[in-house]
């Protein structure tokens, strides 16, 4: 649920990076923060949560135009997956406008991906959002590790595991080097803004 701020003529929306611990959510955001400095507004907030960090910063996307004459400001978040962080998760996921699910390509993390996606569905449901309706992009991260001989799942297998019902756009990525990070975000922004356009048109 984006916030329309009439005073600043700004629409504030929320994109959240979700995924199992160490799948590369924070690496994605760190890369965006560095590579798109001009579009970042303010500092990056980094909170040490057990097993994972929680990141947040404001992002002003480029070339997306205006919605109803308003600029768009995107809040980018990662959310801690651990069960205990329910208050943080609730604040971050409540009213989320777009999601990136960062899946870990390592074979040994197969189960973790599936559990995390199920958690996401349940958490969204608790806060009144349907995973099939919210703009969602999947990212298969750590594809570069294949070169080092580490066993990865094929993208086909991952797709079967995670995307059989969701039918979300998929991007392969290597967040460490930044490959695929921009594409993932751009696609998620596109879907999110389209969805907002629809919402605001309906509201008229």
């Amino acid at each position: 649920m984006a916030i329309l701020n009439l005073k600043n003529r700004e629409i504030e929306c929320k994109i959240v990076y979700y995924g199992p611990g160490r799948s590369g959510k924070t690496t994605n955001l760190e890369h965006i923060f560095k590579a798109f400095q001009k579009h970042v507004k303010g500092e990056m907030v980094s909170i040490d949560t057990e097993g994972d960090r929680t990141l947040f910063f404001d992002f002003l996307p480029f070339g997306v135009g205006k919605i109803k004459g308003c600029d768009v400001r995107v809040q980018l978040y990662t959310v801690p997956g651990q069960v205990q962080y329910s208050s943080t998760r609730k604040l971050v996921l409540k009213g989320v406008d777009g999601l990136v699910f960062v899946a870990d390509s390592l074979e040994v993390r197969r189960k973790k991906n599936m559990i995390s996606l199920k958690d996401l569905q349940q958490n969204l449901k608790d806060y009144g959002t349907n995973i099939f309706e919210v703009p969602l992009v999947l990212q298969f991260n750590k594809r570069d590790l294949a070169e080092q001989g580490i066993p990865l799942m094929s993208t086909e297998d991952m797709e079967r595991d995670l995307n059989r019902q969701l039918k979300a756009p998929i991007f392969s990525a290597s967040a460490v080097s930044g490959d695929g990070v921009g594409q993932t975000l751009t696609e998620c922004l596109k879907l999110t803004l389209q969805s907002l356009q629809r919402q605001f048109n309906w509201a008229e």
Partner: protein
Amino acid sequence: MNHRIVLAGNLEFLSLGDILQLLGSNGSTGILRIRSKYMEEPGLIYIVDGDPANASSGSLTGLEALHSLFGWIEGEFEFSKDSVREEPVIKKSRMEIILDGLRMLDDGEVEKMGPVSVAKSPDSTGKDDGLPFIKGPLVDYSYVVDEESFSDGDKITQEGKHGEWVWVVLEGVIEVVKETPKGPLAILRLGAGAFIGSVASSLTGGKARSASVLALGDVQVGVLDSQRLFTEYSSVSEESREIILGLDKRLKEVTERAIATYTKQNSIEDLIKDRTPFIKQGENDERILIITQGEASIVRNTDYGDILLANLKEGDFVGRVPFLNIGHEPHSASVLASEDFEAKELDRDHLLEQHERLSATVRNIIEHLAICVSVTTNITCDFRKSFANEKSDQS
């Protein structure tokens, strides 16, 4: 000063994190006040152009105070537009404060200001035998007229002796012990914020203590101002007083039944032979009544049989207490009435309104009673369950 309240509501609907975000994206300037029934003083957050500049909560100020306010998950808030001349003590960004505050709440670094909690016995006592452990909310020291210290093993109250004090545990852990034909039985443990002694004894003056209370390790307790409790209690309507006394009696009954179940003397067949259901377990019955004639039994139906939880008579209440959950009728127990049973229904709204008038301390005492009723009931059921298992082991 001009207090213009421009936004107000309930924290359970809009959390502190949500409110700060909202005020932040509006770039508002003013004072956010938060009230919790577990705290005497409201928490204050001074906001300049959408960013928190300073805060106070009890004796804390600045960021520390602001973080602690994330633990106030129940309560009311109001934001008044006002010019704030506070020096900006807090320099951290809004989102960092919010995300950090919530993390501290989830990590247990910030204390949750909620109702009485039931938890596992603390490890510090050296014995975790699964006894229920009840803690209370923050103690309002203005009600404490005297403090007393006890050492490990000291008896704070002796079952059967007369006494009229109500104590609140300030520090340490105490154990509630009942005499039974099979020897003394520890029923539960109480920690900081929990109350010792019944409302009834302090109000009707010197009744026999229904249980002994022992100190586990060093314990600091506060004696509550019984004059003040009495005055407050006298200020509510007779019906409200009947409910409060009824809760007290209910706890005594439930405890007696727990002991009877423990000594396998809680036979129910003869007792409820001639009784008819007045409220059925699981029914969505919102009524609250006072028995005017006859008797009633509170019975819980479980997988291992019907368990008698309490016997009630004229003057006791039955039904759903509007401001509490005692874990009995109508959801988790039935009311079986004698043939001559009669009861008059009370006005729920009136009781609620009277309850709201009481101070946080008196409401905490009442809530503590309700938790004890609910916990003791579960103990009774556990006794019954273990007997059922014993029997099936033997056969």
